Structures are given as C-alpha cells and as structure tokens.
C-alpha cells in the first residue's frame, strides 16, 4: 500500500481563458502608500522583504500617497503624460498602417507607456537604456523625431537604420537608446558591461536594461544578474511583467512560484516590485535605484507589474488565448488614465487641457506620418542597396566590395 501520491506532471495554466471571467486574484498586490521606502544606501540584507511588496504611489482617487511619493514639478509630470499619450496615438496609427500594408510588422506598447516615459525623464542624459521593443515612450519623452520613427518603420529612403532592421527595433545613441536585437534578453549583459565600464572609468553614468517576464527564463538573464552582482555594476535591471509572453502567461516563466523581483534575492541584489502603471511609483523606484548605483552600492532588480493591453505584435491575436476583457479587469488600471487623474486632482490639468494635448499629439503623429508616407512606405522607397553592404565591418573586405559590385551597386 502506498502512503504517498503518484507523481504527476504539473503544467501551469492561467486563471482564465477566452470566454472566461478575467481573474487576477493570484496577483500579489498592496495598497498605494503601503510599501516602506528604505534608505537608498541600506545594506541588501535589510531589503529582503521588498521583492514581495509593491511600490505604489497613486491611489484610486489619483492622489500621491506614502513614503515613495516623489516631489515632481507639474511640467515634469505633464511631459511624462504627453510622451505616454503620444506613444499610444502613434501605436494606434502605425498598427493601422501595418493593416494597410504600409509596413511588415508593428508592436504596440499599449498599457506599458508609463515605464519608458518615467525612466526616460528620471535618468540622466548620459545614462544608457538597453531597451526591449515596448519602450517607445522613452524616445517620445526625449523628443526623438516622430517622422524618423515612421521612416524606420516603413524602411523607406530616409530610414535612419538604412533598411537593415525590422520595424520598431530602433537604435538612437544620442537619446540614450541602445540598438534593439530580436534575440530576447541578449542585451541585459551589455547593460551590465556598459555599467562596469562606467565604474572602471570612474564615470557618473549608469545603465538600465530590460527583459520581459518571459525572458527571465533565458540563460542570458542569469548571466547578467551574476555579473552585475559580482562586480557591483551600477546598473538597473528591469523585468517588465506584462503578464503575457505572446500566448504564455507569466506562470510559464515561473511567476506562479514567486515574484520576478524576488529573483534578486539569490544574487544578493535588492529587488523592488513596482506598480508599472503608476508613473510616480516607477519614477521614485528608479531614482532610488539610480542613487544606490551612484552611491557605489551596485545593481538593483526592478519588477514592473503591468499589463500588455494589445496583441504581442501585428502578427498575433490575443483573443485566441486570453479573455477579451482582461485588460479592463487588470487591477492596476491604465497608466495614462491614472497619471491624467493625478494631474487633475493636483490642479495641474483640466479635461479641456487634456483634450487639447490629445489632439495636439494626434496632429503631430498625423503630420509625421504624412511626411514619412511622402518619402515612401514599405516597398515604395528604400535606402540605396549599397547600404546593405555597409557597416558589416568598419571597412568592407574584398568579399563585400565584390558582392556589392555583383549586385550592381
């Protein structure tokens, strides 16, 4: 007679599927203002509860509460809101452009706009961001020219990357935005290397790197965390937990077992879990981690709890694997609505002013699109094919010169 159960293979499944009721009861949450705010230079041993809490500042009414509430001027917050609104409008228009056959591919940041915008405005000009493909708001917050984004997406004659990259895989060094690769997680170690180089040079700039929660399963991520911890690199490593890695829910990456921020514990790094739809909380947590890094205390792992409202990409249909109304049921709301509400509560924004901001952003996107479309959409114009053979090496070798001639350029 057996006194223990038979072994059975466990395959995690999300709380609900298409046709079901959205259910986020398993997501550990805390109220706004509840999480403590330790000293930025506190030893890691005093921070081990942090990965299980949730840094939140904006409450349900839109008031900033608790010890993490940053003291940010209205124009800073308005700039953040503008970047987020611009990102959402841009995403909608360019997604439509994909459906109209003007580009091969598109990825929206919808629901995650607060992250890039807050980071972009919080970090210094010389800090370097090692982004994923949902950080468009970083560039928007730093006024990257919208028409250049369109040109890249259309791979037209004025594409700043000369037709070599898929749409949205931008590179913008002057804006602190490292080149995006299609391989997930492979740049996290670059962020650590960059930060180590900054420390080696006794510089005062840091790096910030990102992966999605699904990518935390990649070996790259553990290598980067190990190096960051061992060499005390001045880097902020972010896990954007948007609940879905294409059709695989966060539990498939281990999210049912523990929080992603808690991965920091085994490396001896502080881990913060942050409301990723709360511009103020993100800003405050990032500032905390940056001050810690510049205080020579090394790296921080930040989990940003958010929700991917749109499809993974223009090639994906999320209604096939999750409830249609799950985004509306996400307990942390929408980042744009929440920041807007806060600014209204503060008295720094009115509904009318918001409408004016919104239509101004629409106009800017429309004009940029018109300008880029005049240069050409996918297939209508493209950079010189000569560019295909350039930048492979600093100087082309005989193969590239011969092959360029063979191709007729």
């Amino acid at each position, binding site marked *: 007679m057996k006194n223990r159960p038979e072994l059975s293979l466990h395959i995690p499944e999300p709380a609900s599927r298409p046709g079901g009721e959205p259910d986020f009861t398993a997501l550990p949450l805390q109220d706004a203002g509840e999480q403590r705010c330790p000293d930025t230079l506190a030893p890691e041993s005093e921070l081990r509860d942090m990965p299980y809490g949730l840094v939140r500042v904006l409450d349900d009414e839109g008031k900033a509460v608790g010890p993490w509430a940053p003291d940010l001027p209205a124009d800073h917050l308005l700039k953040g809101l503008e970047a987020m609104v611009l990102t959402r409008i841009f995403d909608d228009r360019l997604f439509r452009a994909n459906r109209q056959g003007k580009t091969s591919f598109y990825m929206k940041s919808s629901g995650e706009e607060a992250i890039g915008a807050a980071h972009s405005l919080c970090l210094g000009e010389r800090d*370097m961001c*090692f982004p994923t493909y949902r950080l468009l708001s970083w560039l928007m917050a730093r006024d990257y020219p919208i028409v250049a984004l369109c040109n890249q997406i259309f791979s037209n004659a004025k594409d*700043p*990357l*000369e037709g*070599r*990259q898929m749409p949205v*895989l931008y*590179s*913008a*060094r002057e804006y602190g935005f*490292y*080149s995006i*690769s*299609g*391989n997930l997680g*492979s*740049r*996290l*170690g*670059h*962020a*650590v*290397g*960059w*930060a*180590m*180089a*900054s420390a*080696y*040079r006794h510089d005062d700039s840091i*790096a910030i790197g990102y992966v999605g929660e699904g990518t935390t399963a990649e*070996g*790259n991520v553990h*290598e*980067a965390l*190990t*190096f960051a911890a*061992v060499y005390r690199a001045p880097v902020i490593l972010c896990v954007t937990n948007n609940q879905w890695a294409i059709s695989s829910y966060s539990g498939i990456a281990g999210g049912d077992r523990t929080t992603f921020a808690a991965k920091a514990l085994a490396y001896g790094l502080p881990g913060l879990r942050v409301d990723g739809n709360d511009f103020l909380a993100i800003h405050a947590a990032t500032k905390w981690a940056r001050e810690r890094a510049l205080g020579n205390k090394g790296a921080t792992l930040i989990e940003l709890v958010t929700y991917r409202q749109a499809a993974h990409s223009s090639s994906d249909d999320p209604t096939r694997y999750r409830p249609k109304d799950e985004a509306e049921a996400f307990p942390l709301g929408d980042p744009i609505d929440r920041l807007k509400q806060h600014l209204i509560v503060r008295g720094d924004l009115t509904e009318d002013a918001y409408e004016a901001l919104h239509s101004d952003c629409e106009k800017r996107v429309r004009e940029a699109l018109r300008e880029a479309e005049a240069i050409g959409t996918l297939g209508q114009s493209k950079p010189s094919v000569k560019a295909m053979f350039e*930048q*492979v*090496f*600093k100087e082309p*070798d*005989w193969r590239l010169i011969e092959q360029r001639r063979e191709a007729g350029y």
Partner: protein
Amino acid sequence: MSAMNMVQALNSALDVKLGEDPDIMIFGEDVGYFGGVFRVTDKLQEKHGLTRCFDTPISEGGIVATAIGMGAYGLRPVVEIQFADYILPAFDQLVSEAARLRYRSNGEFWAPITVRVPYGGGIFGGQTHSQSPEALFTHVTGLKSVIPSNPYDAKGLLISAIEEDDPVIFFEPKRLYNGLFEGRPDDPVKPWKNHPLAEVPEDIYRVPLGKARMIREGEAVTVLAYGTMVHVALSAIEECGIDAELLDLRSLVPLDIDAIVESVQKTGRCVIVHEASRFAGFGGELSSLVQERCFYHLRAPIERVTGWDTPYPHAFEWDYFPGPKRIIDALQRTQEV
C-alpha cells in the same frame, strides 16, 4: 628582441597593450591571480592591477556579453575563453550581438572586442578540449577570425586584433604554445628557442590582419594551412621532397585572397589542410574560391586534408589528426595528374 615561445609572445602583447592603453582590460576564467590555465595572462594582474586583469564567473555567455557592453561604451576588452570548445555558450552573443551590432545600429554602436580562444588537438583532450570551431565563426559575417602559427605572428596579430574596431576571435593553437610540433604522436615538442619566428621584439609591433605569410616558395603545388597545421604541412613537404609552396593564411576573415590566387595560378595545384572536420569546414570555402578564381590554371583536383566528420575522439586522436602521412598522400596525388 628575445626568444619567446607563443605563450610568452601573447603575454608580451597583452602586457604592452595594457601598459599603453588604459581602455584595455582583460578578463576570463582564471586569468587574474592565477594567470590563466595556459599562463598567457601570467603576472598581468600583479603588474597592471586588479581592474585591468581579473577573473570571471564560469559563464562564457556572460563574459562575451559583458565585453560587448564595455566595447559599446568605449573600452577595448580582451577576453579569454578557456578552451575553444567552451565558446558555444557565448555563440549567441558573438553571432547575434557582436557580429551585428554595428550593422543593425547603422554604425551607432560597435563591439571592439577580442575573444582569445585556445583551440586544436594533439593534447589528448578528447572531444571537449580539442576542437577547431573556426568555420562556425567564419560563416558569420561581422566577425574576424585570426589564427597565428608562431610566436612572432602571435604577438603582432594579437596587437592588431586588439586595435581592431570589429570583433575578433583569436584562435590560439595550444599545441604550439610551448614549442614546434610536426604532427607525429611520438615526436617530442621541440622548443621554439632556435626558430627564427621565436625572435620577438619586446615592444609594440603589428602584423596586419588579412595578409598571408609565405612559409616556403615552390612550383609544384600550393598548400594552404593555418595554425598548427602550418608546421605539420611543412614537415610533410620536407619529408616527401615535392616542391610545394606553403602559405600560412594567418587570418581567415579577412582572407588574403590575392596571395592564394597568385600562388595557385603559379603552381596549378592546391592542397588545403586544417584540423577541423571536413564537411562544410573552412577548407570547403577555400576550395570553392580556388575553383572559382583559378579553374583554368588547375592541373589536378583540389585536395582537402582535414579531421574526419566525427567528434574529436580520445583514444583515436592520432587516427583523427591530419598528420604528415595523409598530407604527403595528398601532395603525391596532385602530382600524378
């Protein structure tokens, strides 16, 4: 000038570059205090300090990823992968990141990194300490692949590699680290001492990438080789008495195509020798290039003498290794037609 073996010449290259350029740093498994399992980084930490030469976690992917980030920042990291066989965990970083960073960012970012990898067999290293994985990297555009065959070139090529703004994989023939090797299992390794190419300047000098070295001029057949096989091929040529011309390629990317074409057009015959297994190996590319550019000069089929298409074995090491006998057979076959 002083007589150096290849380990000492490589150490000297790293030493002078560390002394000259504060942007250079060296890291890898066991390279710091201990000076590397092959002693190539011996005393560099002691002389230049902890932050210039240090140990890393056992994480080849982490080593290369970190180097790429440092390179993008503006440093010139030189990293060691303890054995070429262990480079595969770093493959994605080299192929998807280092090789393409400049291209995909349209020149905004690049990775001026040097990845040193001891490679090759003949040391009873079995299948995980003997491989020659150069073809995996020569197929990937954006990477340069360099393989020295003697102490003088080793130092000059390594200095050039470090100064390159493109990522370089620097394959070090570990069988040649301490002395000459002619490819027979029962031959003792002869020290480099009396070899002219072991006379190495103490200071900085450069051997340019992309220039082959003429080891021996001849009229009967061209032999293309690199790394350890240069010496094995030379020994075979001397033994069989065929008047072969031997080219040491020194770098596979960039490749000195002009020297190859000039030689094969002169001799009309070509034997390609490498340690790596044959199918889709670098010899296939060389053979195709020779065929494309020298077809009307060829008087015999192109021959390849290579490792077999098996994993590198332990007990059968000398059956696998393309030794002098197999090279002589190939040289003779080219003379029969």
